[in-house]
């Protein structure tokens, strides 16, 4: 042996006497997780990350008195600083690409990257909504093709593409319903019926349009109570709003009868299509008697949720409601594709306009890419796998947690309540927060309102069996810990997330909705 290196680094960790030793770091960082200040604390007031060509700065005397004189208050970052700032922030988020994201009613499925690539083709991304229609034939063709897929999948004759999200779609549907009643001279209908299990957007939308909202009772097995519905229907009812599959994850068995009773009373059937993922390609709402249904492209058709939008909420409509659909209408004839943007011709009875321009084109291209990728057969498999995965969750957790509706299969999501936590000192919230420590995003909590301490798990079809097993294994272990009295594991959880539990009361009592320079001064003085 020659030239032995005696100054090299140790290659084995030293065994520490107390391996649980933890100390707050000196910088606030935790290993790879940086403690990142606000833009306003790191940016420079004279710094920019965008270079513009030299151009004469022309100020016109016409604008005198209209020009800014004071600083705006917008700090800038160079490009490398911007990359660091936002990449550091990104690392404080959970994401589908990281692990299962089992939010019930939200359909957090994989977002294919081909969708992103297609939406960014310059022919879609870099075209103006008001270019002459002869120069955007392909863009209108995307709308027309998407409309064809949506109509075929739902078995409905018409679709309004422009609503920008599910709630916007609900508004669109109810406006079409109101217009249809008004066209018949039937303006006395002032009531919308909806089950208590409905999404909050349903009553909010109905009230928005000026309808009084009345609850429909629920049966013991989690469905619409037909007798109650029948009793409440009448000449004063404009519409019912029923989610199907409903928010308990159950298919409304009596859906055809619900539609029949509704129509017999002269009312329309609005179906909340948030849970369409459970039946896409396998059941057509048009075969069930639905008059209007919004489809969240950001749920069933995989356009990314993006931290809270943008979404898209096209609404399929029955023959009775189609004439009232909002502008613009997409038309297709021998001369090609066109947009009808005025209340004339076919669209003479339109109830109006939901938004400027034509809707969420960027979401249309993504959703259509997704549909074409799956095809009719793949979409049917989507529904089957989504339902299979949810039932697998229900079957493998049913003995340690309490399923709210244990009898019979669920659809795309499994609903549990907090009966099984009674006496443990652990609440639904505590349990959810402990899931964070185990690397999972919690399920939807405390919704729907019809069961106590609700936990609504929607795995979606894009989870592998291995990931489901990992999830089930973790939840079983947590459930057993709760029952074994390990309350401290839950009460302060999460312990390992970027932040501990946040004080929502403080945020609401003393709202601080923006950064202000004075806050910084006060902080420095502390």
């Amino acid at each position, binding site marked *: 042996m020659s030239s032995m290196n005696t100054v090299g680094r140790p290659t084995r960790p030293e065994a520490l006497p107390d391996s649980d030793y933890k100390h707050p770091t000196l910088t606030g960082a935790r290993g790879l997780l940086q403690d990142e200040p606000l833009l306003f604390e790191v940016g420079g007031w004279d710094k920019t990350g965008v270079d513009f060509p030299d151009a004469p700065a022309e100020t016109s005397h016409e604008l005198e008195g209209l020009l800014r004189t004071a600083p705006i208050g917008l700090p800038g970052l160079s490009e490398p600083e911007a990359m660091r700032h936002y990449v550091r922030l990104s690392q404080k988020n959970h994401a589908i690409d990281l692990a299962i994201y089992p939010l019930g009613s939200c359909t957090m499925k994989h977002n294919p990257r081909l969708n992103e690539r297609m939406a960014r083709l310059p022919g879609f991304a870099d075209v103006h909504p008001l270019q002459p229609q002869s120069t955007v034939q392909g863009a209108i063709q995307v709308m027309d093709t998407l409309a064809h897929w949506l109509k075929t999948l739902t078995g409905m004759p018409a679709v309004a593409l422009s609503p920008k999200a599910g709630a916007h779609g609900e508004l669109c549907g109810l406006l079409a319903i109101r217009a249809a009643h008004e066209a018949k001279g039937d303006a006395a209908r002032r009531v919308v019926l909806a089950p208590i299990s409905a999404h909050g957007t349903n009553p909010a939308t109905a009230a928005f349009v000026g309808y009084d909202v009345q609850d429909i009772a629920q049966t013991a097995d989690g469905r619409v109570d037909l007798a109650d519905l029948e009793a409440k229907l009448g000449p004063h009812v404009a519409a019912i709003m029923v989610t199907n599959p409903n928010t308990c994850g159950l298919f409304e068995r009596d859906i055809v009868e619900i539609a029949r009773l509704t129509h017999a009373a002269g009312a329309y059937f609005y179906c909340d299509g948030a849970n369409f993922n459970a039946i896409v390609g396998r059941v057509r709402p048009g075969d069930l008697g639905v008059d209007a249904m919004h489809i969240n492209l950001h749920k069933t058709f995989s356009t990314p949720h993006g931290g809270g939008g943008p979404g898209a909420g096209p609404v399929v409509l029955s023959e009775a409601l189609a004439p009232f659909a909002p502008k613009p209408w997409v038309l297709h004839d021998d001369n090609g594709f066109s947009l009808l943007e005025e209340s004339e011709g076919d669209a003479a009875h339109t109830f109006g306009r939901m938004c400027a321009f034509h809707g969420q084109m960027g979401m249309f291209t993504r959703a259509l890419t997704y549909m074409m990728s799956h095809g009719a057969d793949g979409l049917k498999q989507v529904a089957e796998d989504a339902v299979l995965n949810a039932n697998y969750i229900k079957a493998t957790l049913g003995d340690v947690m309490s399923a709210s509706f244990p009898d019979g299969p669920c659809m795309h999501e499994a609903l549990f309540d907090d009966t099984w936590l009674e006496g443990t000192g652990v609440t639904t919230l505590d349990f959810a927060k402990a899931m964070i420590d185990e690397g999972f995003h919690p399920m939807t909590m405390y919704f729907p309102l019809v069961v106590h301490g609700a936990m609504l798990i929607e795995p979606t079809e894009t989870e592998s069996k291995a990931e489901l097993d990992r999830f089930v294994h973790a939840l079983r272990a947590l459930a057993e810990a709760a029952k074994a009295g390990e309350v401290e594991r839950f009460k302060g959880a999460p312990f390992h997330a970027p932040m501990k539990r946040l004080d*929502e*009361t403080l945020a*609401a*009592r003393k709202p601080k909705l923006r950064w202000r320079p004075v806050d910084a001064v006060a902080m420095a003085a502390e």
Partner: protein
Amino acid sequence: MSTYFTKDHEWVTVEGDHATVGITAYAADQLGDVVFVEVPEIGKTVTKGDPLAVVESVKAASDVYAPISGEVVEANSGLGDAPETVNAGPEIGGWFARLKVTKPSEVEALMDRAAYEEFLGTL
């Protein structure tokens, strides 16, 4: 001076032709930390059962109904800066409004403290 209660968990204390209205400790506890209170404008007239005030916690928002009819003569504006008073002393500093009572007989339909406590036991 006597205090009466409603099934919606409001309390009302009547002194002569004036009444003070608030929510009960049970209601405050159910709401959780109160973060915002909207008190009525002075001069507003309410009929028994009308919305009188709004109380919000982080997780819920509730209307507070007038237990009896009257005209608002005073509102607890201090709750604007200190909504937590509703949790700390729902029947002391946490009152919402004082009314000039227009139909004194309406209190007869309300519960007294013993009846309210019995009612709570059934929930």
